[in-house]
């Protein structure tokens, strides 16, 4: 983290969706930095443009105003190879076994297959799916499918992982477990992670920084540095400081 330049810099980014008759401002004036190796949570109610913002960073949408810089000068950031994505649905190909699913990005990028396979094996091990490599997605539970999706997002060794409410569809207990898993994976892989969620506790628990977005009109409310010790543990949720952070976010979202 000696880099002076942040890994991602968003400066006044806005996005307007236009249909024939109306314009819809999805994102306005989003300004925040993400340093290399950080895990930044993007929190806000549904429809606040979190996903749009993520897709702008992923290069799937153009933005209308402001600037997006990823990687900075001379970091060798390759938008094709250095982005991994995890969505709310695991989106595994149901006709492929777990191993083959994890291999998909490597196939598309044309990476050397032997090494990619070894890496996929290691990653499946890391996400706790050793022994399930030859199963089909329907043979796995929701949480296991999402683990496979996380392994898939890491197989081409990207610098940046974008996660769009990855645990939103899981039950509360599995979700807690997956939060801890994600922190462990983040610790081990040292990736930069941008984590979109509508769970305030989740955002604070995971993030080194939380970016708060409000809905209608979509705008960025605040950026909060989360100063809690690493590695995070579940009992931190009862810390006084943890409560201060969550209360502040509730207030920003007008829920207090």
């Amino acid at each position, binding site marked *: 983290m000696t880099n002076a330049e942040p890994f991602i810099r968003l400066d006044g980014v806005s996005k307007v969706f236009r249909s024939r008759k109306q314009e819809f401002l999805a994102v306005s004036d989003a300004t925040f930095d993400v340093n290399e190796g950080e895990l930044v949570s993007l929190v806000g109610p549904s429809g606040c443009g979190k996903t749009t913002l993520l897709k702008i960073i992923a290069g799937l949408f153009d933005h209308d105003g402001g600037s997006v810089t990823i990687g900075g000068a001379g970091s060798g950031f390759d938008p094709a190879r250095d982005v991994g994505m995890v969505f709310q649905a695991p989106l595994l190909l149901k*006709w492929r076994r777990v191993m083959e699913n994890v291999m998909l990005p490597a196939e598309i990028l044309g990476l050397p297959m032997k090494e990619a396979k070894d890496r996929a094996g290691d990653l499946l091990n890391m996400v706790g799916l050793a022994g399930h490599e030859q199963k*089909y997605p329907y043979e796995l539970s929701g949480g296991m499918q999402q683990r496979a999706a996380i392994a898939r997002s890491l197989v081409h060794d990207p610098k940046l992982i974008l996660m769009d409410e990855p645990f939103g569809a899981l039950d509360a207990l599995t979700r807690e477990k997956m939060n801890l898993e994600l922190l462990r994976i983040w610790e081990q892989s040292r990736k930069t992670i941008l984590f979109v969620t509508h769970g305030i506790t989740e955002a604070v628990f995971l993030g080194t920084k939380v970016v708060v977005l409000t809905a209608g009109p979509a705008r960025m409310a605040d950026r909060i540095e989360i100063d809690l010790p690493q590695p995070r543990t579940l009992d931190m949720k009862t810390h006084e400081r943890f409560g201060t952070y969550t209360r502040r976010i509730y207030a920003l979202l007008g829920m207090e």
Partner: protein
Amino acid sequence: MWRWSAIVGVHLAVVVIWYLVVKLGNIPKFVIASPHATLMSLFDTYPWFDNTVVTTIEIFGGYFLAVVVGVGLALVFSWFRTVENLLMPLVVSLNMIPKVALGPLIIVWFDYGPMTNAIIAFSISFLPILITTARGLREIEPDLIDLVKTLRATRWQVFVKIQLPGSLPYIFSGMKVAVVLAVAGAVVGEFIASDAGLAYLIGQVQVTLDTAAMMMAVLLITLVGVALYLIVLIMERILVVRDARVETV
């Protein structure tokens, strides 16, 4: 195993009932021929083999063309949404045309013969394949396409790795419906104008009231259709993971 015995058993039961109806009902053989008489008609001098080959080629040829054109056109639709929005309503209207009624016209346009009958089989069977494939391609999660787009996948990679395997269950459900239609198309073509094929043969032996031969011809046409259906079914078993199969007929 139980399932296979059931399939064979039900078919055998129909033959037995057929036999009993003819035997006990004292039905004259020019109305319904007995199973035995029907089978024995194979030894008559009719060119069974040649006619079966002709009909098989018409059905398989027209069907193969229907699969290629149906899937291909659906793919073009998925690439160019404007084309889909423009042409899909037309496709629905075209689907309403009783294709059988087009038979005489197609024969006027292409002259009669196995080629023309294959074209009729094609025209009647490609629309369901197009419609189900287009549906299957639409069912693919947009997020999944986004996922591979972030990896800068080429259009061909998206098709081969995501779209085609993803819509295969739908393609097969359309293909299964299309088998029946392809068979009907070839038969209609042969009925209207032809000089070979099993349906042509039916027309020939009808004049001499050789009911056994007529029934044998129907049976052979059915067998060709069943063979094609089985091929499609086996391909589906091989290519589509059980969980993904779309249940139809």
